[in-house]
């Protein structure tokens, strides 16, 4: 992730508290109001909330967790990068949950990553220099195309 100044509107640094999700939501809303379709707006809000909530709830190793989120527009596509210094976790390798067909059989939890993978157009993960780097892509409907 490229180093950016603290005032860069494309970058938000979050701490290890669930209340930080409110700050994330307000920041995303600012982006979502800027010429983004309702579909991409929903996907962006849902995926970033799920990914960051997961890091805050399960990622801390010794309490010193830092999460940085960046957004970049490339034509009709939004790219989100989430970087954290927590425990290694690759959501792209997590198998999708088996969705229950009855309430009795339904297991509680494990839906956040599944929802993020379902709503993002594409998801990439790498672990580099002790940090998780998750990249999410959101294509506007007219820009969607098959993966190369």
């Amino acid at each position: 992730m490229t180093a950016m100044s603290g005032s860069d509107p494309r970058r938000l640094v979050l701490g290890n508290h669930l209340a930080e999700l409110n700050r994330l939501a307000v920041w995303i809303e600012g982006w979502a109001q800027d010429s983004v379709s309702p579909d991409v707006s929903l996907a962006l809000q849902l995926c970033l909330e799920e990914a960051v909530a997961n890091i805050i709830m399960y990622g801390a190793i010794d309490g010193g967790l830092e999460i940085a989120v960046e957004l970049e527009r490339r034509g009709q596509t939004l790219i989100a990068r989430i970087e954290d210094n927590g425990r290694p976790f690759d959501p792209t390798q997590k198998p999708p949950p088996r969705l229950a067909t009855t309430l009795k059989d339904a297991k509680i939890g494990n839906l956040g990553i599944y929802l993020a993978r379902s709503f993002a157009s594409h998801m990439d993960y790498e672990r580099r220099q002790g940090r998780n780097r998750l990249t999410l892509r959101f294509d506007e409907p007219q820009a969607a195309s098959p993966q190369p």
Partner: protein
Amino acid sequence: MEIAAEDLTDGITKVVLRGRFDTTGAVQVELPFNRIVTEQRKVLVDLSAVSFLTSYAIRVLLIGAKIVNSKNGKLVILCPDGKVAKVLKTAGVDALIPVYVAESAAIEALRL
């Protein structure tokens, strides 16, 4: 996030949730919601005024439905088509908890 409960006829309790039912919103309403589903047997959860919903909210709804079902009761969701309904459907919630777009249909299902 706000939560309010209202008694309807036939022993039905309508729970109205309002705002962002995201992680922090769900944490806020989890305890009062659990109290209602523990005490009631016919519960209509109205998500019409919910603007956004995440997996933690789904967790709260599923736990609530399981509690009500364990007492041979029933919990249904009222949710108009839109982004909240889209998230519920993607998560497969509509296969586990009845979801209605009209309040009259939701109430009728609880009367049965």
